């Protein structure tokens, strides 16, 4: 059986891990198969969890989150017959598949929408843990915003510097309120469970928010502008489907492959005008065609549109 390990936020974080859960469930519904799953409770458990799953014969073992990288590097060689897949991190082992996303492209798209929807010309970004990966989101977002409104002000806040930052809705809400006070009227939350607080506060305060990873539009219908979809669900689904024959190596899930996107559904249909839609679809096409190159923060740890 395949197995999946969720990171600290837990599988019901309505965001990153939940997307992975949805992928696994979709596989289950379609194939009728069973899978093992595990939620991390603490940093120190990662190794035991990996080993126990590998021991139990699970194959492949999929894990969500960069934090497994180091441990996987250590564990993978001990189980050469087991295939592993890790999302958001590159682990160079013969039996590991690394799946990464071009979050900067998806973030660019929602940045375009944010700039179009903002009346104040100030937009916000709330990140989770302050790591290059999250800066990559922020940087792509900023590029999208600036593409529409070069004078826009972008307020960036990170929730914290530890994994606890993925799961701190109180702090998310307080940061969102602070950003609103500074003039932001659209806030993009790339912060896992913390984002729930951001979306809630934005809805309470009557401003717009942008969800992340899963489609979060439904959380506050008419108040969430859109969501940056990161198809972790697809990644997990594909990995489960490939089963033991999963191909090791690096897979980049980009916009062209449908790895990232923005969400449009009945919950936000009223918020996205035709003009906005046209703009974002144009940007999308240009990115896919390569006409627009969205800078990847992690390539050189710099951002043309933002200073951290």
């Amino acid at each position, binding site marked *: 059986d395949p197995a999946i390990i969720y990171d600290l936020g837990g599988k019901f974080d309505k965001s990153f891990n939940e997307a992975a859960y949805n992928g696994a469930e979709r596989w289950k519904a379609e194939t009728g198969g069973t899978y093992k799953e595990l939620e991390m409770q603490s*940093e*120190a458990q990662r190794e035991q969890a990996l080993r126990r799953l590998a*021991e139990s014969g699970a194959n492949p073992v999929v894990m969500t989150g960069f*934090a497994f990288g180091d441990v996987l590097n*250590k564990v993978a060689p001990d189980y050469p017959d087991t295939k592993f897949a890790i999302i958001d991190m590159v682990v160079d082992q013969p039996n590991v598949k690394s799946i990464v996303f071009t979050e900067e492209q998806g973030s660019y798209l929602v940045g375009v929408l944010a700039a179009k929807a903002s009346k104040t010309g100030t937009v916000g970004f709330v990140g989770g843990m302050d790591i290059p*990966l999250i800066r990559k989101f922020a940087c792509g977002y900023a590029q999208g915003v600036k593409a529409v409104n070069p004078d826009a002000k972008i307020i960036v806040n990170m929730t914290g510097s*530890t*994994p606890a930052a993925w799961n701190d809705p109180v702090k998310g809400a307080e940061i969102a309120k602070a950003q609103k006070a500074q003039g932001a009227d659209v806030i993009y939350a790339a912060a896992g469970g913390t984002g729930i607080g951001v979306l809630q506060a934005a809805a309470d305060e009557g401003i717009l928010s942008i969800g992340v990873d899963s489609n979060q539009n439904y959380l506050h219908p008419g108040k969430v502008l859109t969501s940056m979809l990161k198809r972790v669900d697809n990644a997990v689904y594909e990995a489960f489907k490939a089963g033991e024959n999963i191909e090791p190596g690096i897979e980049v899930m980009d916009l062209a492959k449908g790895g990232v996107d923005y969400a449009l559904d009945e919950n936000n249909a009223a918020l996205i005008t035709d003009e906005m839609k046209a703009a974002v679809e144009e940007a999308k096409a240009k990115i896919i065609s390569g006409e627009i190159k969205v800078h990847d923060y992690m390539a050189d740890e710099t951002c043309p549109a933002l200073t951290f």
Partner: protein
Amino acid sequence: MTRLPRWADLVLVPLISLLLAGVISALVILAIGQSPWEALRTMVVGALGSPYAWGYTLYYATSFMFTGLAVTVAFHASLFNIGGEGQATLGGLGVALVCLSFPWPHWTLALPAAMVGAALFGAAWAAIPAWLQARRGSHIVITTIMFNYIAAALIIYLLVSVLKPAGQMDPATARFPEGAHLPQLNEIPLVNLIFDKQVPANVTLFIALIACWLVWVLLWRTRLGYEIRAFGRSEPAALYAGISPFRVTMLAMLISGALAGLMSINNVMGESERLLQNSTEGAGFIGIAVALMGRNHPFGVFLAALLFGFLFQGGAELGLWTTIPIELRTVVQGLVILFTGALDYMVRMMLVPFFRARKLEAA
């Protein structure tokens, strides 16, 4: 009130407390619509069913022996050290600094050095609450709780801002050099006949056993131990006997902190081989339950540590293979502490009629 015979006090009371905790846990499991029997079976198989399972149980038990002994030593000086968690955390820092500061050629050299680092850092973290208790009368329970939180904050800061290697995203130190790798049970000749798969239990287990014995010697065979016990029973009397409260408080807490710190040899050096956030996983707190359950005697601590190793590993297995959340083990742990530490009088009262009846029969 009839007094219980000593053996009842030492054996029966903890067992009945455990039984009560078990019964209530079973009720909780029933209440959430699961089968206690199934839960127990999963735990037993997962924690005791194979050498591999034992490898985990013993790994956790090793940690709990250290933290249990830490609580025990302080307890005999009538100091309730709730700070094991923080002291073990700091011990981990000591281990990490030692392991990373030098390209260790062989574990036999790295281990003693790391032990010194762990003990020193753990003791240092206990020293301030100890001093505040001895000199300023600040209640050690409150100060050690505060120091747990301060330790957590300190480690986060250090991991994120100082110790994290460039380019790494998760807050952890670099990996320790190969030479600092402690042999795991599956890597030790002879022992590896039993443990044929890689298990986290490592040579620290033997150090923990030695520590149990040494603590027993300390408490019941040395002058310092005598002074610690005397001071713990009666401070005025200790003063009369010329035992310095300051000295005993400091020494007991330093030893306690050092023991808690030494735990990090097991988890930081022996298992994860780098310092992580929350590396202790609550072992400092479990030490309280272990000490209470073990009646503050090193041998009791040894047994209780095995029990809690079983609970911890078994609980992890529950989380892994059943839909019973892993938090069940926190509940059991809390109930054991409650019954052995706070409701022991109730347990005794339950036993008294039985012994009174026996006495009457005998008479």
